[in-house]
C-alpha cells in the first residue's frame, strides 16, 4: 500500500474519501496492561505516531477485569476512548446499543483480504462495527512427555485422560465451579460446539437441543471419570500443567506464551480439540471506533495503518499465538519456538466467539443460567437433559421469546 493521500497521512482509507485532521486520539485496550504483550503494542503505536505528523494515538490502559464496564459506562455517558479493542460480549452489547461507529462504507473486506470466518461476527443487524484486532483460537494443549501422541477422537481423548491420571498427575483439567462461571462457560462452549450443538440458531434459543445435551454429557463424562483435579481453579491447574502435573487442557492461543513463561523447559504442544465437529470457541477481539468520537477519520486512519501487511505481521508477533485480521505468515523464529502455531492458525475459520448468537447483549445472563444448571447436574442433583430443559425455560423467560 502506498503513502497516504494527505502529506504525512499514513494510509488510504478503504472507501472513505475523508482524510484525517490534526488530532490526538485515545486507544483503549486491555492488552496494553498485559505485561507480556503491552510493551510490544505500545511500540507499535509509537511506530504509527512517528510515521506521520497528523494523528497521535495515546494508549489508554484499562485493567482487563473492569475493562468492559469502565469503557461501556464512559461510552454510554457520551464520552470514552476514540478507539476500543473490545472482547466479543462487550462488542455485541456496544454495537446493539448504538455506541459504535458503523464501518460499512469504510472497510472493504475483500480488498483488505480480511479472513471471512471471524470477520462475519463483526456484523450486527447488518452493519459492520469493527475489524478483528486479535483472534485467539482454542486448541488442545498437551504435555508431550506424558502424552507422546495426541488423541485424535473423543474416545481416545477420554482414554488418554484416564491413562495419564496416576497419583498426583491428572490427565485433564477444566473449570467446574460457580466461582469461575465465565471460565466454565468457555470450557463447555468447546464441548457444545465440538458435538455439533449451539446455544441458539440466531433467533431462537436451543439450549435444550439434543446436540447441546450431548456435548455437555461429554463434559460430564470426563468430570465423572475423576481425571481432573476437582476444585482446582484455572490459575492452579495451569501451574500444574506447567509443572507436568496435568496432561491436557483446552485453552486458547493467548496462553502459549504464558505457559512457556511459567516453565521454559516444558515439552508441550497444541493440537485440534479431538471432538467430532471441527468447531471450537475463539476469543475474538475487534478494534472499533466509538460513535461519540470527534475524530473518527483519525481513528480510521490508525485502523487502516494497522491492517497493512507489515503491521499485521508485527501485530501478530506482539500477540504471540493469536492470529490477526488478515492471513499473515509466521516468522521463522516464532515457528522454531512454537512449531504448532500453524495448527492454531488453521482453526481460525472454524472459531466461534463465545457469545449466544443473536442474543449477544444477554450472553452474561444466559451464561449464568446455563452454568448454574450444568454445575447442578455435575453435583448429581439432576441429569443433564433436565438441567438444560430448566435452563432453556429460564433463559426464554429472560429474553422474552
Amino acid at each position, binding site marked *: 500500500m502506498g503513502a497516504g493521500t494527505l502529506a504525512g497521512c499514513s494510509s488510504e482509507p478503504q472507501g472513505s474519501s475523508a482524510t484525517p485532521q490534526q488530532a490526538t486520539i485515545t486507544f483503549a485496550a486491555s492488552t496494553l496492561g498485559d505485561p507480556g504483550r503491552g510493551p510490544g503494542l505500545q511500540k507499535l503505536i509509537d511506530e504509527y505516531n512517528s510515521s506521520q505528523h497528523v494523528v497521535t494515538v495515546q494508549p489508554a490502559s484499562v485493567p482487563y477485569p473492569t475493562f468492559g464496564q469502565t469503557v461501556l459506562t464512559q461510552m454510554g455517558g457520551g464520552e470514552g476512548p476514540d478507539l476500543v479493542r473490545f472482547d466479543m460480549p462487550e462488542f455485541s452489547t456496544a454495537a446493539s446499543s448504538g455506541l459504535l461507529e458503523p464501518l460499512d462504507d469504510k472497510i472493504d473486506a475483500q480488498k483488505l483480504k480480511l479472513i471471512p470466518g471471524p470477520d462475519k461476527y463483526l456484523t450486527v443487524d447488518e452493519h459492520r462495527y469493527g475489524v478483528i484486532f486479535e483472534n485467539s483460537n482454542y486448541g488442545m494443549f498437551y504435555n508431550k512427555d506424558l502424552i507422546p501422541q495426541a488423541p485424535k477422537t473423543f474416545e481416545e481423548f477420554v482414554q488418554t485422560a484416564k491413562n495419564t491420571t496416576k497419583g498426583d498427575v491428572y490427565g485433564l483439567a477444566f473449570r467446574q465451579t*460457580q466461582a469461575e462461571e465465565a471460565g466454565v462457560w468457555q470450557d463447555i462452549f468447546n464441548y457444545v460446539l465440538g458435538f455439533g450443538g449451539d446455544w441458539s440458531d440466531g433467533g431462537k434459543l436451543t439450549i435444550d437441543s439434543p446436540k447441546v445435551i450431548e456435548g455437555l454429557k461429554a463434559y460430564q463424562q470426563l468430570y465423572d471419570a475423576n481425571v481432573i483435579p*476437582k476444585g482446582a481453579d484455572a490459575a492452579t491447574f495451569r501451574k500444574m500443567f506447567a509443572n507436568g502435573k496435568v496432561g491436557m487442557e483446552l485453552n486458547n492461543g493467548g496462553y502459549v506464551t504464558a505457559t512457556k513463561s511459567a516453565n521454559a523447559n516444558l515439552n508441550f504442544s497444541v493440537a485440534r480439540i479431538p471432538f467430532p465437529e471441527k468447531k471450537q470457541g475463539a476469543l475474538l477481539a475487534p478494534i472499533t471506533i466509538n460513535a461519540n468520537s470527534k475524530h473518527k477519520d483519525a481513528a480510521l486512519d490508525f485502523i487502516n495503518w494497522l491492517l497493512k501487511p507489515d503491521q499485521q505481521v508485527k501485530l501478530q508477533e506482539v500477540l504471540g499465538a493469536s492470529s490477526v485480521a488478515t492471513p499473515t505468515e509466521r516468522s521463522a523464529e516464532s515457528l522454531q519456538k512454537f512449531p504448532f502455531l500453524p495448527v492454531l492458525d488453521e482453526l481460525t475459520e472454524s472459531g466461534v466467539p463465545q457469545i449466544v448468537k443473536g442474543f449477544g447483549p444477554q450472553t452474561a445472563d444466559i451464561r449464568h443460567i446455563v452454568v448454574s444448571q450444568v454445575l447442578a447436574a455435575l453435583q448429581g442433583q439432576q441429569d443433564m437433559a433436565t438441567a438444560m430443559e430448566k435452563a432453556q425455560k429460564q433463559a426464554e423467560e429472560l429474553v422474552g421469546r
Partner: protein
Amino acid sequence: MVFQLVPLLQEVWLSFTKTTLLNPNLNVWVGMANFQSVLANPSFRQTLLTTVIYVAACVVGSVGLGLLVALLLNGRFPGRAVARSLVTVPWAAPGIAVALIATWMFNPQFGILTRTLRGMGIDPGPNGVLNNPQLALGAILVTTIWQLVPFVAVVLLSALQGVPQELVEAAQVDGAGRWMTFRVVTWQVLKPTIGLVAVLMTIWSLRRFELIWLMTRGGPLGSTRTLVIDLYAQAFESKQLGTAAAIGMVGVVIAMIVIIGGRLVANAAAKEA
C-alpha cells in the same frame, strides 16, 4: 453530611428510573416498577432469605465466639501478650487473601477442612463443600466468622478492661459464683459495647462482597447469593442500574431497621442500668 446524603439521594433517584450502564443518562422515571419487578421475582425472595440467614449467623457467631475469646484473653496465662497480638491476624488479613486461603482449605481433594469434615463423618461429596448447595453457605459463614471474631474479641477485651475490679470482688464476697458474677457485673458493663458491635457486624455482613464473590460467586444454584451479590450482578452483568439501585435500597432499608432497632435496644439497656 453532604458527602453522605448526595450519593444516597442519587441512589434513591436511580431506583425509580430506567437507567442502564450503557445509557446512564437515560433516567426515565418508572415509579415503583423496579421495586415491583425485584420483589415479584422468586429468586430475589431466596436471595433475601439467604441474606437474613447469613447476617444473623454472622452476628451471632462472631459476637458469641468473640466474647468467648475476649474472656479467655482477659484471664491470666503464660504468653497472654503474644496470644493477644496473634488473635488479630485474621482481621488484619485482606479479604481476598482470606477467600483464597479458604477456597484452598475447602478444596475437594487437597483441602484440610474437607478432610477434617470427612474424618468427622460429614461427606461433602466428590465435588467438595463449595460446590454443594447444602454446604456452601456454611463454608462462607465459617470463613466470615473466622475473620470477624478477632475484631469483636479485641473490642470486647478493651470493654472488659473497664469492668470495675471492686464490683467483681464485692460480688465474690457476697458469695456469687463465676457465672453469677459474670451475669450481674461483667455482662452489665459489656452490654452497650455488645449492642454496638452487633450493629456493626450486621451492617458489615450486609455489605460483604469480596469473600462470597471470590469463593462461590453466589452459587452453587444461588445458595450463597446475598443482596450485594445480586446488586453487583444486576448492575455490572445485566447492566440494569435502576434495578440494582432498587436492590440497594432494600439493603439500605434493612440496615436502617437494624440501626434504629439497635438504638432502641441500647436506650432500653441504658435505662435499665
